[in-house]
């Protein structure tokens, strides 16, 4: 039976097999996935990957991307920190490893003008994108801290719907990632009640991260390193030539969804996010704890072994940059 | 079954067909079933229609009933809606025998209790008193035909002040044994006499036609035309046998002339 055999998954026995023939890379058509969009638009990934064929796969939501990871049909992918933790937890720490950060910060609690302090939210409904996603956890934790937990309703809606509902006055408050918080502010006249940055030391917290399937990471570390080099290049490009980077992001968005964002929204969104390969590992235990506090999870996810920053640090070292810290979460 | 209804012998015809033609289908597949039919049925008259299989008898009844439109010619009726008994039983498969008989009464808005009594009487008349709560698929072929007869009679007898009544029957006794058939023939005659309704009766049995009808009309086939008519009211037995012989001979002629 299953119990006697124990779970020896393929990942444990995998060995280095050199560069892969193919890299299936997941991402969203979203500003918080800017590194991915820039890297793809400018060909940074393809260049570094050389002979490895890059297969970009666009996802519409985190859970589907997680399913693709768990089903083995995705090798690497940009994804929000919430689903990333889920992917790790639901596979009992097997299926995936977090190899680098993607984007940090870029989430705000925006409200209608008549709400000026947290207490004004009492009796109102606050919207977040999805149950258990990064913003959902953050909002619920914040409500607990403010002692508003039972006096404020939280509900989930697709971001696009939230925008329309806000315009119609059905919704007065939402905790949203970029570019949606910017769209609410610029297109619908919302005010920022709280920037999530204020809740974190240095204003840094993970929004998008880069996951790799554990087995892939063990079999093709060189390919993962190539991907990370591409990511560094993309981030560097965004830092040095941000106007063109924004253009690149918008081009991708238009190609992927048929329509770009207007310039003001992109500009505002870019000011609140930062593209950084540091995974901010130290924040994860708090994220895991917050999920419990927020009532989204029943027990704290054990994150030991979640991080595998070997490839990242090799690449950073080669580039002469400081290594990233796994905060002790890289071992079981 | 003693219902008597006002008879309407005031108008001079119950049905009149003038130069009626009926063609089914278009183009090369067109079939002319009837061509130049002229027929007049007086109020209260009992007319039997004879003819080879496929000559157009059913088509004539359908046209009179208003279920089909003639391709040419005119049809005049003195009643708005004749009662019809189809060649098939055509019972509603979801209704019991009794409910099938009640259906025309229900459509005419007759109250439930009265409906039930009348249906029971009619089922009795066709010797199916015990089968009222059976469904069509539980009945034999002949029983189904008798239910259809009872239904047609229910429809025929339930007409108040609606011009001259008219009953169209398409081989109503074909699936019955000789004895039941004899019995129902007498019942039909009784009902006919009591109500004074005009009847157009299709049959293949020449003796039946001579026995029941006041007039026998013979149709030819391909296309159907009126070949000959015989007045057969009030004949005695030997006369009847003679006419029967004659009609049979004519029928044979018509059929073989067509086959040739």
């Amino acid at each position, binding site marked *: *039976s299953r119990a006697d055999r124990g779970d020896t998954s393929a990942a444990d026995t995998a060995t280095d097999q050199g560069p892969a023939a193919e890299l299936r890379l997941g991402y969203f058509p979203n500003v918080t996935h800017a590194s991915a969009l820039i890297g793809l638009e400018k060909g940074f990934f393809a260049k570094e990957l050389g002979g490895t064929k890059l297969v970009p796969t666009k996802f519409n939501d*985190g859970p589907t991307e*997680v399913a693709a990871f*768990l089903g083995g049909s995705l090798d690497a992918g940009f994804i929000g920190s919430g689903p990333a933790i889920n992917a790790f937890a639901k*596979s009992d720490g097997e299926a995936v490893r977090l190899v680098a950060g993607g984007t940090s910060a870029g989430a705000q609690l925006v409200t209608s003008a008549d709400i000026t302090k947290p207490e004004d939210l009492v009796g109102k409904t606050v919207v977040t994108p999805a149950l258990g996603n990064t913003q959902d956890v953050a909002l619920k934790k914040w409500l607990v801290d403010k002692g508003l937990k039972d006096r404020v309703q939280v509900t989930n809606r697709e971001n696009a719907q939230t925008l*329309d509902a806000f315009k*119609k006055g059905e919704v007065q408050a939402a905790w949203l990632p970029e570019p949606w918080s910017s769209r609410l502010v610029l297109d619908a006249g919302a005010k920022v009640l709280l920037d999530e940055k204020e809740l974190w030391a240095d204003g840094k917290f993970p929004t998008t991260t880069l996951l790799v399937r554990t087995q892939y990471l063990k079999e093709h570390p060189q390919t993962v390193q190539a991907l990370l080099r591409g990511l560094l290049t993309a981030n560097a490009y965004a830092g040095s030539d941000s106007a063109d980077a924004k253009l690149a992001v918008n081009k991708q968005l238009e190609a992927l969804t048929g329509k770009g964002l207007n310039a003001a929204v992109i500009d505002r969104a870019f000011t609140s996010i930062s593209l950084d390969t540091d995974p901010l590992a130290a924040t994860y235990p708090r994220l895991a704890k917050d999920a419990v506090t927020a009532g989204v999870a029943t027990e704290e996810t054990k994150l030991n072994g979640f991080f595998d920053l070997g490839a990242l640090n090799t690449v950073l070292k080669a580039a002469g940059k400081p290594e990233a810290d796994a905060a002790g979460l890289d071992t079981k | 079954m003693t219902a008597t209804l006002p008879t309407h012998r005031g108008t001079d015809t119950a049905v009149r067909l003038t130069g009626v033609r009926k063609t089914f289908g278009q183009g090369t597949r067109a079939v002319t079933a009837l061509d130049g039919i002229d027929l007049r049925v007086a109020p209260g008259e009992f007319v039997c229609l004879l003819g080879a299989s496929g000559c157009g008898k059913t088509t004539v009844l359908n046209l009179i009933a208003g279920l089909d439109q003639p391709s040419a010619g005119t049809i005049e009726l003195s009643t708005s*809606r004749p009662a019809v008994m189809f060649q098939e039983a*055509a019972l509603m*498969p979801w209704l019991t025998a009794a409910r099938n008989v009640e259906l025309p009464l229900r459509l005419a808005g007759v109250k439930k209790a009265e409906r039930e009594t009348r249906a029971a009487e009619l089922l009795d008349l066709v010797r199916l008193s015990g089968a009222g709560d059976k469904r069509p698929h539980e009945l034999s072929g002949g029983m189904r035909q008798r239910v259809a007869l009872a239904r047609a009679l229910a429809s025929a007898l339930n007409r108040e002040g609606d011009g001259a009544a008219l009953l169209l029957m398409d081989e109503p006794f074909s699936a019955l044994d000789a004895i039941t058939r004899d019995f129902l023939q007498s019942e039909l005659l009784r009902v006919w006499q009591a109500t004074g309704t005009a009847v157009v009766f299709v049959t293949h049995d020449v003796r039946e036609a001579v026995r029941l009808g006041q007039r026998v009309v013979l149709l030819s086939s391909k296309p159907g035309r009126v070949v000959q008519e015989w007045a057969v009211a009030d004949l005695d037995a030997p006369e009847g046998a003679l006419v029967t012989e004659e009609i049979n001979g004519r029928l044979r002629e018509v059929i073989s002339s067509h086959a040739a």
Partner: protein
Amino acid sequence: MPHEATAPVADHAVEGLDALDAPPEQPRRRTGLVRSVLAPIGALVLFVAVWQALWAAAIWPEYQLPAPIAVWDQVWKVTQTGQVWEFLWVSVHRAIIGFLISLAVATPLGLLLAKVAIVRAAIGPVISGLQSLPSVAWVPAAVLWFGTTDAAIYTVVLLGAVPSIANGLVAGIDQIPPILPRVGKVLGAGRVDAARYILLPAALPGYLAGLKQGWAFSWRSLMAAELIATSPQLGFGLGQYLHNGMSLSDMSMVMAGILLIFLVGVGIELLLFRPLERAVLRARGLSGSL
């Protein structure tokens, strides 16, 4: 004993359809009873056994194929906390109301489509086209127009179920032997009477098939609507439960949600449609293998 329990429901439903003269149930043979109770249970046991065996063989990792017991635990958990009754109540009552409204709208529509040539030519294809639009497509539009209210949900349900029921009725009417409406005509049925006493009962077997599909569409559309549109006003239904399972990437929760949705579907089939169908077909001597 789902079977015995169904009898009164069936009778009741049949009474409600008295207009259509559906008959009382005939006495049932013991083999029929045994078969209709044991066979589905047997199928279920077999299914769970295969699942368990596959899981035990550990061909797939746990997160791809959760153990049956893990799924059962999820169901048990919501049953224990009593939440399941809330989900079921919210979803089922909505589905039933939606279905009934659809029925009331689709029946006259179907009659018109089947009997009035110009209506059929003009909007027949539209109805079929509507049927092929996924419910998810309507959700954002419905929410935009009606807000996250019950109205939005019923809109989505109606757009799913009405075309399906109407098309089922049309198909049923198309198959009526032409002699029956003719009989109706000579017996003096006007347009309304013909519909009530001839067309609808004659089309009943096909109509019922359409109703089954219509119910499936109602229920699916409702789930789709609940998956996407959520708000405290709307309550917490099965679709929402499933959606939460998906958001948390919790496979056993997803499977528990699927299981619950599926059980409602099967339950309605066994408690409502199966006995109705059986009664209708039996009355016409169309028992087949029922």
